C-alpha cells in the first residue's frame, strides 16, 4: 500500500516568534523555518512502516510557498519516495488543505494518510480529522503507537487520562503525537539522493479547490506579560507565602 504524509513548513520550534508591530501577524522575515515537528514524526512512521514491509511507497505532500520544496526535500532525504507540492503563497486554512488532500487521496489511493496532530504555527489541530470526515474514513488521532493488522490498523492514542486504543478499518487517517517515534536525521548521501527524487508541483486550482479563507484575522497581539515577582530568602519565607495564599 501507499502512505501519504502531508508536511508543513513552519517557524523552527527553537525560534521565539515575534508579533509584528502593526498587529497583522508574526514576523517570519529572516526567521529559520523547518518541517513542523509533528510532521517529522509522521514521515518517520511512514518510513518505518515501509521498512517493515507494510508499505511500498511513501509520498510526501505539502501545501505552501515555493520554499516548501525544501521541506519536501527533507522528507525525501529521510526516506520518502516522491513528493507533491501544491504551490500557493496564500495562507491556506485546515479545511482547504483537507480538501486538497482529499483530491490527492482520490488520485493515489493510499492505505494510510499520516499527519502531524497540529502545526506549531496556527496550532489548529484540525486537518487530519477534517480529511477523515471528507473521505468518510476512520481517524486515529494523537497516536503513540500504530500497528497494521491485515485490513485494519490499531492506533494507541494519547488521551487526557492516559492511553486509549482503537481499531480502524483501512484506509484510515492517523495523526501523530510526540511519543510515536524519534525521527531520524537525514544522512548526507541521502540528502544528495533526495535532490534527484521526483517532486511534482501543482496548484490548488489543479484540484478544483477554493482556498478562500473562512476566518478573517482582525489582529495579532502579544500575550499579556507576566512580571517577575519577589524572591524569598529561604524555605521559611516560602512557607509563610504559601500560608498567605491559603494553601498551607
Amino acid at each position: 500500500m501507499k502512505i501519504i504524509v502531508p508536511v508543513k513548513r513552519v517557524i523552527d520550534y527553537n525560534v521565539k516568534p515575534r508579533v509584528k508591530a502593526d498587529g497583522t501577524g508574526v514576523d517570519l522575515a529572516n526567521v529559520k523555518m523547518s518541517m513542523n515537528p509533528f510532521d517529522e514524526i509522521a514521515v518517520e512512521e511512514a518510513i518505518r512502516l515501509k521498512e517493515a514491509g507494510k508499505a511500498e511507497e511513501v509520498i510526501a505532500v505539502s501545501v505552501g510557498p515555493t520554499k516548501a520544496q525544501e521541506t519536501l526535500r527533507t522528507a525525501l532525504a529521510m526516506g520518502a519516495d516522491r513528493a507533491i507540492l501544491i504551490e500557493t503563497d496564500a495562507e491556506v486554512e485546515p479545511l482547504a488543505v483537507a480538501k486538497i488532500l482529499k483530491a490527492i487521496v482520490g488520485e493515489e489511493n493510499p492505505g494510510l494518510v499520516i499527519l502531524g496532530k497540529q502545526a506549531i504555527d496556527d496550532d489548529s489541530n484540525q486537518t487530519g480529522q477534517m480529511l477523515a470526515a471528507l473521505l468518510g474514513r476512520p481517524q486515529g488521532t494523537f497516536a503513540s503507537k500504530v500497528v497494521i493488522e491485515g485490513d485494519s490498523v490499531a492506533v494507541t492514542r494519547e488521551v487526557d487520562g492516559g492511553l486509549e486504543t482503537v481499531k480502524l478499518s483501512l484506509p484510515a487517517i492517523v495523526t501523530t503525537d510526540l511519543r510515536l517515534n524519534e525521527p531520524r536525521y537525514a544522512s548526507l548521501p541521502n540528502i544528495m539522493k533526495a535532490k534527484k527524487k521526483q517532486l511534482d508541483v501543482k496548484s490548488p486550482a489543479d484540484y478544483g479547490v477554493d482556498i478562500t479563507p473562512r476566518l478573517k484575522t482582525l489582529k495579532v497581539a502579544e500575550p499579556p506579560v507576566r512580571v517577575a515577582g519577589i524572591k524569598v530568602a529561604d524555605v521559611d519565607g516560602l512557607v509563610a507565602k504559601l500560608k498567605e495564599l491559603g494553601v498551607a
Partner: protein
Amino acid sequence: MKTLVWVEHDNASVKDATLSAVTAAAKLGEVHLLVAGSGARAVADAAAQIAGVGKVHFADDAAYEHALAENVAPLIVDLMGHHDAFVAPATTTGKNVAPRVAALLDVAQISDILSVEGEKTFTRPIYAGNAIATVESSDAKLVITVRGTAFAKAEATGGSGVVEDVTGAGDAGLSSFVGAEIAKSERPELTSAKIIVSGGRALKDSETFEATILPLADKLGAAVGASRAAVDAGYVPNDYQVGQTGKIVAPEVYIAVGISGAIQHLAGMKDSKTIIAINKDEDAPIFQVADIGLVADLFNAVPELTGKL
C-alpha cells in the same frame, strides 16, 4: 443564537471541562447540551442541572460509549440542523470530534478560544500562546473548541434543563474501541487541579523524582506535573507533561521544581494564578514569570518545605 455544547463524561458523571464550555457558549446565546453515551442517563440528568442550560439532547447507544468520532460526528451534524454553533471543550475528545463535525458542515473550526469578542469574533492562541489572534468567522454556522482555563466554570447545579431523547445512526462501522489504560491516581487531575507541583530535568531519575516531588504534592493535595525534559528523560509518563506539546494548565498555585522554564514549558503554565519556582540557578528563565522564587538546591529545599507544611 442556539448553541450545542458537547458534554464530556465517562458515562457516569459530567467532567469539569464541560462547565467552562457552557460559560463560553452562554456568551453566544441559548445553551443546549448533547450527552452522547451508553447507559449514561445519570449524566444527562446531571447535565440538566448545570446553571443556564435549556435542553439536553440525550443519545444513548452502545456506539456512543467511547465517543468514537466516526460515530458521534454524524449525530452532531444532524442536531446542527437546528443549532447555530457547536461548542466543545478543548479536551482530547473535543479536539478529536469537533474538526470532523466542522468538515462535514463545511465550516472552518475555531480552535481553543480564549474569549468571545462578538457573535462571530473570538481570540485564540497561536504559536504556542506566544501570540493571540483575534479572528472573525464568515461561516453560517460556528464550530468552536474552548480552552478550559480561559473561562470560569458554570455552576454544576441550579439549572432546570429538560432532557430530550434523540437517536442517531449509531455505529458507522469504521472503527471500534479496543481498550484504555487510564492512569489511576488518588491525586487530582492535572487540568482541573487547584495546585500543581511540577518537576524538571534536575530531578535526576524517576526514583528521585518520586521521592522528592510526590511527598510535597501529597502534603498539598496537589496534582503532579513535569516538564518535557523530565518526560523525555523517562522520569515520568507523558501524561504528566505540562507545556505546548503536553497539557495546558492554569491552577491557583503552580510550583515549578528544578524547571528552567523553556518557552515550551511556559506555554503550558503561564496562565497559572500564582507561580512559585524553586531552582538553584538564579538566572533560570522560570524566575522571570514566577511570582515567588526561591534560589536553592531543590534536594535540600523541597524536603525541608514538605516537612514544614
